[in-house]
């Protein structure tokens, strides 16, 4: 590739979230100084003032994210496909990066809205929260457009470091500390392994950009293969694929739920997109061997994720194992590796965003009195007390299980079709079989919610921001269950076509 124009405008989406992070940091300092001036302010006033500042910060970060998404889509509509970097491309702006940026932006936006009432409920309403969230989003924007090992590594670290801090954001809670500790230690080891793999790949091929690696890779060789194995292991850690999934349940359970929702959707999207770009650009000729390796990871993830989820008593922990299982389903698409499979994977990530945010939003709506209500017993009899909440929860769980009539079914359907076409019959059988197992644990919650008596009686109400998120997620799941390929309102946009265009990034 030739050295192209060094166009700073290409970085607009990244700039908006990064500046947004700095602005929210400064805003908090300025606003809280104004609110807390004077000695004799009583704690109650302080709490109200904090909540108000939190709302301002949430609006500021929403604005930054929306601007970033708008900039990304606007640039793409203008045909602004460019490679950004000094001398050679570091970041590639194309349909895939635009799609992923929009998806990650949406995930971040919904997570911000989830946090508005959740943070005060847990008494952890500090301004750094939004700044860290935005910085991590910026890292993911880098990650999804990275076409060079250097930008990949920097993006990955910029994504991860703020999330380590966010996982431990509930500083006074031991479980949150522990989640942050485990995530940090395992994450740091994983990124060091990834880095060593990159060093070996560079040594074997003499290039750090993906296309250069693909040219240098032709001979194969032990050095290149071991580098490749380490890189795939490092990326598999980030998307919690078995056997690199051990951190997932602990971190999902211990981290504040809004953080769990954020990283469950956005990190997974970013990780899978960058893995996809790396495999397609850097290893076009390694098809057979890599596909077997990815297939093994997919099978293990589906089996272990679904089986371990069955025995969990904590909803967040159960959802963590379900996330491992879903990573396995997505890896089936990677093992297939055809353009249809990439389309199916991107569509799956899109649908997965709504299901996951929705399900964690219900857990958040239950939180009150400074603690989370996240064990399965806490859901007992929810239907009699808050019927609407129980109904949407059931919808999200059915969608995660992949029952017809929900978007989750369509996502799985396209994935299965693509995998069958690519001849991955064994993996499809595992996918269908383990999905059956998953009905058991997904349907356990509706049973508890509808058939048991309410034991505790928390008088919490669903806040308006949570209602917006829940309604949006539920509407999306119902809409894309029937109109994934259709366009009933004449908007000219079909979800599957958009995903297909994004998957077509090679041309």
């Amino acid at each position, binding site marked *: 590739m030739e050295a192209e124009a060094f166009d700073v405008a290409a970085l607009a989406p990244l700039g908006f979230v990064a500046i947004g992070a700095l602005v929210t940091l400064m805003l908090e300092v300025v606003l809280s100084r104004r609110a807390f001036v004077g000695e004799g302010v009583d704690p109650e006033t302080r709490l109200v003032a904090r909540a108000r500042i939190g709302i301002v910060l949430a609006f500021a970060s929403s604005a930054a994210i929306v601007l970033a998404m708008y900039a990304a889509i606007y640039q793409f509509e203008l045909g602004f496909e460019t490679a950004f970097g000094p001398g050679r491309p570091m970041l590639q702006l194309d349909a895939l990066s635009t799609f992923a940026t929009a998806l990650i932006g949406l995930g971040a936006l919904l997570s911000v809205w989830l946090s508005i009432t959740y943070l005060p409920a847990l008494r952890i309403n500090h301004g750094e929260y939004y700044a860290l969230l935005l910085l991590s989003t910026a890292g993911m924007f880098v990650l999804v457009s990275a076409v060079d*090992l*250097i930008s990949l*590594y*920097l993006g990955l*670290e910029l994504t991860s*470091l703020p999330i*380590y*801090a966010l996982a*431990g954001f509930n*500083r*006074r809670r*031991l*479980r949150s*500390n*522990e*989640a*942050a*500790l*485990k995530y*940090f*230690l395992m994450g*740091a*080891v994983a*990124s*060091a*392994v990834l*880095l*060593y793999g*990159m*060093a*070996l790949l*560079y*040594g074997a091929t*003499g*290039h*750090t950009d993906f296309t250069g690696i693909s040219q240098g890779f032709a001979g194969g060789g032990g050095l290149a293969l071991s580098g490749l194995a380490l890189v795939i292991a490092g990326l598999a850690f980030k998307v919690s694929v078995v056997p690199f999934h051990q951190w997932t*349940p*602990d971190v999902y*359970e*211990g981290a504040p739920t809004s953080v769990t929702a954020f990283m469950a959707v956005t990190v997974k999207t970013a990780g899978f997109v960058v893995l996809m770009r790396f495999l397609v650009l850097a290893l076009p000729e390694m098809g057979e061997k890599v596909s077997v390796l990815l297939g093994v990871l997919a099978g293990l993830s589906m089996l272990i994720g679904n089986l371990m989820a069955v*025995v*969990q008593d904590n909803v967040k922990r159960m959802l963590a194992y379900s996330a491992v299982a879903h990573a396995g389903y997505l890896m089936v698409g990677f093992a297939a590796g055809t353009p249809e499979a990439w389309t199916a994977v991107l569509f799956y990530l899109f649908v997965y965003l709504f299901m996951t945010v929705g399900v964690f939003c219900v857990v958040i709506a239950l939180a009150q009195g400074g603690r989370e209500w996240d064990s399965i017993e806490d859901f007992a009899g929810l239907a009699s007390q808050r019927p609407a909440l129980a109904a949407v929860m059931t919808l999200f769980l059915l969608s995660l299980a992949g029952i017809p009539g929900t978007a989750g079914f369509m996502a799985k359907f396209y994935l299965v079709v693509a995998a069958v076409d690519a001849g991955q019959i064994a993996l499809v059988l595992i996918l269908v079989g383990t999905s059956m197992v998953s009905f058991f644990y997904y349907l356990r919650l509706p049973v508890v919610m509808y058939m048991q008596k309410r034991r505790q009686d928390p008088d919490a109400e669903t806040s308006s921001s949570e209602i917006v998120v829940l309604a949006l997620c539920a509407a999306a799941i119902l809409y894309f269950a029937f109109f994934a390929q259709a366009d009933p309102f004449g908007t000219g946009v079909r979800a599957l076509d958009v995903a297909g265009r994004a998957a077509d990034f090679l041309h």
Partner: protein
Amino acid sequence: MSIPIEHVISLSALLFVIGVVGALTRRNLIVILMSIELMLNAANLALVGFNRVWSVTAEGAARYDGQVFALMVIAVAAAEVAVGLGILLSLIRNRDSLNVDDASLLRW
């Protein structure tokens, strides 16, 4: 007189293995952090070493990919340690221990 690339890479691999073993077997948090640093620096050594192999392009121009990468890694490693020590401090405030085995509330 120049050092053969095999020596550099052997040293780097040795350092990396020491780092991995340390991170997996030691129980003291500070020592684990140091082991992670060792792994990152092993990678840096490999990057800089390999840069000597790939020091010119086909057209004869100088290339510094590995060295630039190593510089980036040094910056990131500093940030990583800062976050790690922050997490460590919040842990010590809540529980007077640096032993990772004490962090065992979350399991299965």
